[in-house]
């Protein structure tokens, strides 16, 4: 199978996942208190005639499964309803917030990727020594810290005591440091663990022993042969972790008043701005599917051992 048809197959599975998520969101909308028309008109006063029009336009006079297809087709046309709070189409409320969220999550992922690789490689090379225990202890410890508490403590240390970093807001690099570190530190373990496993597996491969036997310096073997191969799955993990990090960003954005999608999601839940809530969840599911497909395709391209089967 060629790479293109492989990609097409992964994408079509992703498409079904998006449909499935829409179904879940549709069920959520049905379970929410209030009439869908109130949801659509954002609680404005509308005439009886207008309500009838809307009911027909959204197929609300039809059976429930037909309603779902109506809803789906509206969504596929980019019509997600109106925000109760902002009185604007939700797309216009949410989309401008995406760049801030991506800036935060990608910075955090790059930090945890780099530190994960370093800690993972070190703990693999030092296997069985005391320093291995210390290293795995450090990243297990980081992994055990709840992000929201870590955020509070970093705020306390760097914002209140040392007064070197701003504790909220957005704009300069200094504003990015605390939220990005909060999001990054617990994630280091995920990269470090995978890197450690991969390095350990690669260390005992035939070609690595050959390289050692040839008398190449250990560090050269480590960088040229071991790490290069171990990096493939860890790099793929970068894309698989992206959606989960966007999920974690909800809490971090809320703590640091970061003007992104996650913070908006949190505030919208509190203000019961359901159309915005549903749209953000839908958007994150699309991000998830896309980054999973990228991850799969990268594996296929980078790792020649993977056969391109469905």
């Amino acid at each position, binding site marked *: 199978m060629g790479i293109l048809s492989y990609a097409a197959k992964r994408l079509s599975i992703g498409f079904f996942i998006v449909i499935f998520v829409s179904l879940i969101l549709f069920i959520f909308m049905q379970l929410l208190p209030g009439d869908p028309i109130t949801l659509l008109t954002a609680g404005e006063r509308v005439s009886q005639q207008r309500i009838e029009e809307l009911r027909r336009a959204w197929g609300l006079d039809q059976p429930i499964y037909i309603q779902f297809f109506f809803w789906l087709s509206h969504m596929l046309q980019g019509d997600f309803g109106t925000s109760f709070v902002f009185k604007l189409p939700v797309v216009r409320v949410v989309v401008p917030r995406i760049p801030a969220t991506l800036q935060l999550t990608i910075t955090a992922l790059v930090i945890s990727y780099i530190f994960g690789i370093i800690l993972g490689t070190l703990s693999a090379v030092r296997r069985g020594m005391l320093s291995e225990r210390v290293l795995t202890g450090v990243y297990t410890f980081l992994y055990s810290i709840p992000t929201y508490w870590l955020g509070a403590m970093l705020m*306390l240390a760097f914002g209140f005591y040392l007064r070197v970093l701003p504790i909220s807001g957005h704009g300069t690099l200094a504003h990015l440091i605390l939220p990005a570190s909060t999001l990054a530190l617990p994630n280091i373990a995920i990269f470090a663990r995978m890197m450690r496993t991969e390095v350990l597996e690669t260390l005992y491969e035939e070609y690595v022993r050959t390289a050692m036997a040839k008398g190449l310096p250990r560090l050269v073997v480590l960088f040229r042969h071991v790490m290069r191969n171990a990096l493939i799955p860890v790099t793929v993990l970068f894309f698989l972790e992206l959606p989960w990090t966007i999920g974690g960003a909800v809490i971090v954005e809320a703590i640091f008043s970061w003007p992104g999608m996650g913070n908006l999601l949190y505030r919208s839940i509190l203000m019961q701005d359901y159309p915005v809530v549903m749209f953000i969840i839908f958007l994150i599911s699309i991000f998830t599917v896309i980054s999973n497909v990228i991850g799969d395709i990268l594996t296929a391209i980078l790792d020649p051992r993977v056969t391109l089967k469905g």
Partner: protein
Amino acid sequence: MLASEGVAKVTKEASGYIKLIWSHWSARTGLIISIFIILIAIFAPLIAPRSYAQTDLKHRLEPPSPDFPFGTDELGRCIFSRVIYGSRIALWVGILVVIVEALVGVTLGIIAGYWEGWVDRVISFLSDSIWALPPIVLALGVVTVIGPGISQVVTAIAIVSWPPFTRVSRAKVLSIKNREFVIAAKAIGESDISIIVRYILPNIIPSILVLATLTLPTAILSTTALSFLGFGAQPPTPDWGDMIAKGMGYLQIAPWISTFPGIFLVITSLGFNLLGDGLRDLIDPRLRI
């Protein structure tokens, strides 16, 4: 077998397991920490000097002192007592979530692995789709619909995080069901249910226990995260997540309110993570979540 022999066998097996755990440094450290937290939860009324709900407006926002070891909060409640009682909530809610996840996940996983075919395809699609999405986002969607509260939080987290149990048990069933003892049982006409209960279940339980231990800290962190965001326990329940959230408003003048519950949260989660990592190394090194 005589009853006394049975007891002797169980005791011997148990001491064997403890020796095994003791031989692994991460499992050993994790076990000690976990037992420490469990003991705190059990003996909370004996350890805590005050009730978790007792307010004292004369002693608001006081820093740690011999009288109030961890200080007091904005209502003059003793943080130390609240943190100690909070271990009960954290453990109880976390364990409840893991039990629900495991029951749902393992049942679906066995069904998918044992019968395969379209049932398997439907279950696998469901679990892959749910697991593909960031759990906290989906859980927030669920609490938006069902509202705040502890049982709602348990439901929300359980709904979004059963798929690992399905994956692991499905894979195990697939590898076990073609082994000779299962085929033999089928040949002599044993029913499917009896085969599952007598031959398959005992063989997947060790992996499920490892997975459950590894899932517990995640469950505790996610349920307290929802409490932190205000969707969990309602006052005056001493929930660590909620206590940290309340303390955020006083971070500058009374940092101890948020600091101490967080330290206990980290210790608890670290203990079970270390124990789970160790058990995985010992029992099922190839287990991937």
